[in-house]
Structure formats: C-alpha cells, structure tokens
C-alpha cells in the first residue's frame, strides 16, 4: 500500500508543479496589472499585490492610448472577429456538407488543397496581399483585413466541421425529403440544428484567429483609430516600454476573453486538428 500512496503523491505534486508553471506568466500578468507602481518596480517582487489597485485598468479604459480611447480598439477587434466568424462559418458549413455528404470528382484534391493552404506561411503572403489591398484601396480598412482573416480561418473550419456533419445520420435528412421538404428546407430544419454545437466550436476558433492576429493588422492599418487590440498593445508597448502597469492591464483585457472562450471548447479544437490521426 505504501509505495502506491507515495507514487500517487508524487504524481499529484508533479501535476501541481506543471499547472503552476504553465499558469505563472498569465498569473504574473494579472498580478502586475493590479500592483501600484512602487510594487511593480520593487527590487523584491511579491507574487500578489500588497495594496491592490485598479488604477492601471482605469487608465487604460478611460485614457487615450495613441489619441484614441480603448473602446474603439476593442470595437475594431470585435467587428473583425464577428465578421470572420459569421462568413467563415457559413462558407465552412457549405463546404463541409459537400465533403461529408457527397462523393465528387475533385473531392480528394479539394481536401489536399485545404491541408496545404493551412500550412502556407502568412508571413510570406503579407507582401503580395499588402500590394493587392493597396491597389484595391483596402489598406487601412477593416474590410480588407476581414477578407484576409476569412481566408485563413476557412480551411481549418471545414476540416473541423466535416466530422460534425458526417455524424448527423443521413436517415434524418432522407425522412425529411420523404415528407416533402426540399434540400434548402432540410438543410435549415434538420442539418443546421444538429450541427450547431460543432458550429459553435468552429466559430470560437475563427474568433481567436481574428482576435489574436498580428502581422496583417500591423502591416495594413496606418490610422490609429483603425488599430485592433494587439496592434494597440504593441504600439503602446513600443512607446512606453516601462509602463508595465498599464501594459499588463491592457494585456489582461486582451487575453481574458480568449482564455474564457478557449477553455470552453478546448476538447473540440484538438479533435479538429488531429481528427482521425488516432485510429483506436
């Protein structure tokens, strides 16, 4: 009995250590955000703020970073993320239905294309897309960025959704067809409600893609009132590189929504990325 108990203890202790180490940077970010300046720059840092303050949050939320109020950046990020989610979700649902429900001539080619496109380095594509957007007067606008984000979110969304579509029994659609529902009606009354959970999971992934994106937003956007949150953060960091209180408060505001979403769908994300790689 003894060694088994000891083993259990060692395992749990390792587990807690791993948990602490992985959470530490985020914990330190939040903790710094609540510390008054003298504690932030103290030569003996304390893990928790001794005199917690919301001043840095107040400064970030009400102050003007680069001439613009925080909420404008938040709004820009939110608009981009929502447009990306809705459009890429719609495109992905259509394409996933095609892959899961039909066998057609270029089906395999299409899927290989999706796998390849996912791997193309955005860091390379930014050069030609910058010139294209410039030609089309889409630089410095959220519309140009939204188009790019949709293109990047769609391949993964399709690969993830197709499993959910395939899991809907075909008999249900056939029954609807026998009852006289056309393909469009069947889609909306049978398939859509059943695929909804998958659509939610995919949407959150697309949301995070748009919310976190840096290089395109940094390259495309010139006017400060068009900046997204990551660009605002980088800009602020670049101009006040030691104002750690407000920087960490802004970082917290950028990070928390993503973490909440992420924890909600973590399991599905993995199944989408490596779906089928395990054949049990």
């Amino acid at each position, binding site marked *: 009995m003894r060694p088994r108990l000891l083993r259990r203890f060692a*395992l749990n202790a390792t587990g807690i250590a791993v948990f602490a180490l992985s959470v530490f940077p985020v914990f*330190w970010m939040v903790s710094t955000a609540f510390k008054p300046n003298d504690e932030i720059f103290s030569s003996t840092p304390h893990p928790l703020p001794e005199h917690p303050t919301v001043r840095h949050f107040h400064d970030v939320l009400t102050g003007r970073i680069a001439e613009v109020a925080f909420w404008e950046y938040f709004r820009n990020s939110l608009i981009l993320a929502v447009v990306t989610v809705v459009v890429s979700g719609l495109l992905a649902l259509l394409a996933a239905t095609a892959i899961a429900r039909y066998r057609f001539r270029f089906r395999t080619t299409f899927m290989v294309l999706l796998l390849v496109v996912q791997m193309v380095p955005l860091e390379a594509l930014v*050069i030609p897309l910058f010139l294209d957007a*410039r030609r089309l007067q889409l630089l410095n606008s959220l519309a140009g960025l939204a188009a790019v984000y949709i293109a990047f979110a769609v391949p993964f969304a399709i690969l993830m959704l197709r499993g959910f579509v*395939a899991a809907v029994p075909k008999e249900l659609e056939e029954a609807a067809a026998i009852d006289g529902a056309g*393909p469009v009606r069947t889609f909306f009354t049978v398939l859509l409600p059943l695929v909804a959970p998958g659509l939610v999971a995919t949407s959150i992934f697309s949301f995070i893609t748009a919310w976190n994106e840096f290089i395109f937003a940094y390259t495309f956007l010139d006017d400060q009132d068009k900046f997204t949150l990551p660009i605002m953060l980088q800009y602020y960091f670049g101009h006040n590189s030691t104002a750690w209180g407000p920087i960490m408060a802004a970082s917290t505001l950028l990070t928390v929504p993503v973490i909440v979403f992420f924890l909600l769908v973590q399991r599905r994300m*993995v*199944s989408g990325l490596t779906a*089928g*790689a395990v054949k049990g």
Partner: protein
Amino acid sequence: MIDTAPAVGRAPDRSSSGPPRRRRRPRLGPYLLIAPTLAVIAVLTLWPMVQIGLMSFQKVGNRQLRGEPAESVGAENYRQIFDDPFFWQTLRQTVLFAVVAVSLTLLVGTLIGLLLHKLGGRMSNLVASGVMIAWATPPVTAAIVFYWLFGTTGGAVNWTLDALPDWLVGGGWADYNWFGSPLPTYTVLTVCVVWQACPFVAVSVLAGLKSVPSELYEAARVDGSGPWRSFWSITFPLLKPIFMVLLVMSIIWDFKVFTQLFIMAGMANRDAFNLSLYAYSEAFGSLNPKLGLGSAIAMVLTVLLLVVTALYVRVMVRQGETK
C-alpha cells in the same frame, strides 16, 4: 473524451441508399457548395503565392508603388540574398531555433501528456485547463509578458536567479540583459514558444493514449517490462501517426515564428532576425521598401515549408484523412 467527431473519415455510404431510383442527383450540388470557399482560397491564398513567385524576379520599390510597372531583374534578387552572408546567418538562426524549439515542444508536451493520462480525473482536468491557458494566450501578450518576466527592473526571472545560490546558477543575474544579443533573446523566445506550443502536443498525446487499450500495458507489465520499455514498445508505435502530425506541424509553426520575435527583438535588432523577420524588414522595414527582394526571401521560406507540408499531406493521405 477528446475525440468528439466519431464519424470522421467515414465516407458516406452511397450504395446503401436503397432504391435504384437516384435521389437528388449529386451532379452540381457539391461543386456549388465548395465554390465560395474555392473562390476565397484562390483569390486570397493561391494567387498571392503566384505573385510572390513573380515578384521575386522583379524589382518592386517606391517607384513601382507610385504606379510604374515592375522591372524584371531575372534571378538578381536570389543572387543578392545567396551571396549575402547575412542571409545565411538568418537561415542558420531559423533552423537552429526550429530544431531546439521543436524538440523541446515535443519532449515537454509528451511528458505532460503522459502525466495527464496518469493523473486522476479531476486533477487531470485541472492541469489540462492550466496548460491550455498558455495555449490560448495571444502571441502578442505572451511575448510582452515574457519580455517583462525577463526584464531587468522588477523582472521575476532575474530576481529568482539572483536569489538562488551562486554555486547552482552563477551570480550577477540582477542586471542581466536578456535582450542585448541574439543567444539570450532566442533563449527567452524558445521558452515563450515552447510554453505556448507544448499544450497542444500534450492534449493530442493524451487523446491518443486514451485510445490505447490498457490490456496491452498490463500484459507488458506481467512480462516484466518497465515504464520506459512500455513507452517505446507500445505507446510510441501506436501513437506514431499522431507524433508524425505533431512533428510536422511544430516544424511549420516554429520555422516561421514572427510575432514573438518581432516584439522581443524588433526590426532594429538585425542580428536576431530569422527568415520571416528578414523578409518582412526588407519588404516593409525602411523608407526604401524592397518588396521584390523581400518576396525572394519569403519564397525561400515558403519552399522550405512546402517540403515539410508535402510530408504532412503524405502522412494525412496515408492515414485516410482525405477519404
């Protein structure tokens, strides 16, 4: 369970759909359904790829941005980068970083995956959520937070290293500048990237482990095999497909890491460049943009990654992922 897509990979069974009368002819349907996606990918991914290829043989600078047609310069851009020792330095840094970061990511991720599998249900969920937080953190925030952690004034890492006994870690850490030269910068970058990437490996390995029947391990134990041997003769062969995918994806992600290095080193710190930062800085970094030259560097990066992608596609096709 992690695998919530049970029917993945199972092809719809057309033959069993009963009556000989063909219901809903699937002639045009699927093509209409994938058409919008194809259009988006063609315009925003495939065409730009072609453009990089074309531009890498052209001179595209301020005059072209004002509307003059691009001049063709043949292979001049490539000659210029291949003759430049700086290009080889960035390439070396890119490859070295990828080798170190990928190995560490896979090693640490696998260990955490094994740990998650061994832990009890509630503890396992707690630790999984913890590592997942690292994964979810936006790259910009992650880079800034690590910059702060490794900073000289009030930085938690230097303080900890200074507090540790000198015989263990050496002395003089209090004012150590991690961002003064490439090697320490890349050390911080590696820690940051591995911290963010290993949760994905851990959770994938965990999903794989759950699919391995426990009888195999019991049989191995009865036959006197220890944990090390069990891993290499049961776990690893069974999870090999998953490791292949994780390896390829990690290589691709770490090869082109941009945001974190951009924040930590910046465009002014040329010594710390990797290929993607180098391409970006040639294309956009100065008042005299050299988009053609930047495209040539981006092309080298893309070709390197396409080789890895080919491997990835081969693995996925073999595993029936495209069925």
